[in-house]
């Protein structure tokens, strides 16, 4: 009984100095034999990279993932199991990869750039598995497995993430971010890739970042509408909403304009510091256009004139979404077209 009491409290009995010394030695030996240090170091590194808002949840998921990988055998990615399982299991495995990739993408907010970039990289690599390759970072660690990191090249086993999987990822990001399907549909229309296309890392990252920012943007638009309209009095007046949207549009156009200027100058040798300053000034100008004072002015002006009738929350949201989406179009498709064409070409010639 006394022994059990001692174990419950986790304390060593007093008055046994020699016993204590032997105990801590044997503890250390046990820990190093079992590989606890390695295990925890790996976990902490991953945790700090991901910067999740919920570190305990992260660790729980991390160890559970590791445990399921090691318990079903390290054969998750080996030749034998992959081929013998057949197409059905491959599909299920794909879903599993998608879930885990999404989990990684949720960990850090996109404003935490370095953590977010790390997580996007991990997610991309997860989805990029097209063959039975051992991946670095996914090697399970445990007392019996000797860990060897087999480094892979940047592109992983395949030439890129499957288009269908990429589109699915973007869809999930938008819906988890609280954006209704109808609102995100036009955005996804512009961002999505065909099933047969292979999506390279840059496109993937751009798409994921855009969806993350878009979710935030829509949430803010919803809150903006809630501020503008008083719920008791029914939907907000159309004029008011239009003026708010107009201010938003102006601000976005200003920031767009400065990007265009900078792009045009990029062929000339511009001092990068100067370039940065010009950009900053543009963004400051844009944000000034959406300051509370300006917004208040616009709204006060709208009440006097402007079209009659009301605008409900859904319409406001769609209009705000449109302002965002029109800006997405030109940036991505141009790049996407070029890169995807080369990817498909490479695949066709069997590179």
């Amino acid at each position, binding site marked *: 009984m006394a022994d059990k009491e001692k174990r*419950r409290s*986790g304390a060593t009995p007093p008055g046994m100095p020699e016993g204590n010394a032997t105990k801590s030695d044997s503890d250390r030996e046990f820990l190093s034999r079992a590989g606890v240090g390695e*295990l925890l170091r790996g976990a902490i590194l991953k945790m700090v990279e991901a910067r999740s*808002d919920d570190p305990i*949840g992260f*660790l729980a998921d991390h160890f*559970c993932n590791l*445990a399921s990988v090691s318990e079903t055998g390290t054969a998750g990615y080996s030749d034998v199991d992959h081929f013998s399982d057949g197409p059905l299991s491959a599909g299920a495995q794909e879903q599993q990869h998608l879930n885990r990739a999404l989990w990684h993408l949720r960990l850090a907010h996109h404003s*935490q*750039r370095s953590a977010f970039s790390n997580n996007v990289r991990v997610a991309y690599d997860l989805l990029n598995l097209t063959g039975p390759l051992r991946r670095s970072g996914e090697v399970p660690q445990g007392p019996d497995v000797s860990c060897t990191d087999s480094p892979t090249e940047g592109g992983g086993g395949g030439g890129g993430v499957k288009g269908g999987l990429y589109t699915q990822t973007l869809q999930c990001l938008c819906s988890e971010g609280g954006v209704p399907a109808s609102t995100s549909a036009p955005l996804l229309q512009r961002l999505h890739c065909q099933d047969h296309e292979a999506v390279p890392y840059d496109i993937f990252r751009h798409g994921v970042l855009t969806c993350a920012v878009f979710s935030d943007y829509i949430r803010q638009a919803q809150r903006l509408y809630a501020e503008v309209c008083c719920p008791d009095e029914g939907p907000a007046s159309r004029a008011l909403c239009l003026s708010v949207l107009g201010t938003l549009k102006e601000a976005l156009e200003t920031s767009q304009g400065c990007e265009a200027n900078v792009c045009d100058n990029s062929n000339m040798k511009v001092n990068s510091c100067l370039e940065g300053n010009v950009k900053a000034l543009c963004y400051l100008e844009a944000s000034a256009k959406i300051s509370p004072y300006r917004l208040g002015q616009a709204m006060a002006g709208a009440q006097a004139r402007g079209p009659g009738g009301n605008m409900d929350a859904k319409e406001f949201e769609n209009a705000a979404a449109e302002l965002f989406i029109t800006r997405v179009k030109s940036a991505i498709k141009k790049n996407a077209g070029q890169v995807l064409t080369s990817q498909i070409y490479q695949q066709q010639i069997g590179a």
Partner: protein
Amino acid sequence: MTRVNRFNSPVPDHEYLADGDVLFYLRDAVTQLLDHQQEYTTFGLIRYFAEYFSSVKNSNHVLFREYNYIRATPHNRASFIRVFWRCYRQIGKSGDLLSTLEYRSLLQLLCPDFPLEMVQRAARIVQMEDVVDCLMSFSDFLYALQLHFYYPEFLNSMLLIYQDLLAGKSPNTVIVPTSTSIDLLRSVAAENISKEKQQQQQDGVDPSTLAQCIDALCDRFKHSHPPRSCMREVLGQTNKVYYYSFLMSLAKHESINQTIGALPSRAEFLIDPEMDQDLDKLIAQISVSPSSNSSGSAVGGLKEEHPPQEED
């Protein structure tokens, strides 16, 4: 919650780690592992850590642990209150009234070294006087215990402030305790309990003065405290504040209850058929396995294909 720095310089790693209580849990996981080497190495090392952190995530980790562990982090405190509620909710349903010592026995079934002092403080809030033999309802006691168990540092500081104000000190000279003087506070507070009880009957304190001092305390306080708006709301409802009735109002305040997040509202306190199912499972496991460190974590709804390991 980690701080998000929007200007692209991330919070340094050591700050991120220190912000939550992650290091505390990692340390405890390793300590527990060392104390139960035989059991857990047959389990498998990775599975051990997976179960440990899953149980922390699901708030099942505090069962049968020592007092120092359950009060170490806010998450642990809230989890313990919740576990107590889940285990003994039937008492509330049956409407039985219990004494301080009986509640303490119940607490000690879940935490072997739960101190009497903490139980007495909770009882005092309910009873508003220093009578140990008075009987209390389950819900009254638990909400009071929750307040005192979750915010002990704050309540100790506030008691001292209250006593200073009663003694006639002006708010500007009332000393706002810092975190370093917590231990001193405890002993002083204990001494002053009986003094306070006498004065309780006669005098109260001006609510706005107390509000002012509480504001000053919250500004500099390193520990957690109930939301200021709730405290101001309670203080605004009377002309004179008496310490224990103030605490009882705080204990019953729904926003504070939600902030802590351990217990449902009073209206739903006794209702939950899913809880009844979980309770049956819990009781079954307690009666089957005498040492319950592993079964406690397995209750948390982990994967079905990994049933809790029984000890040999």
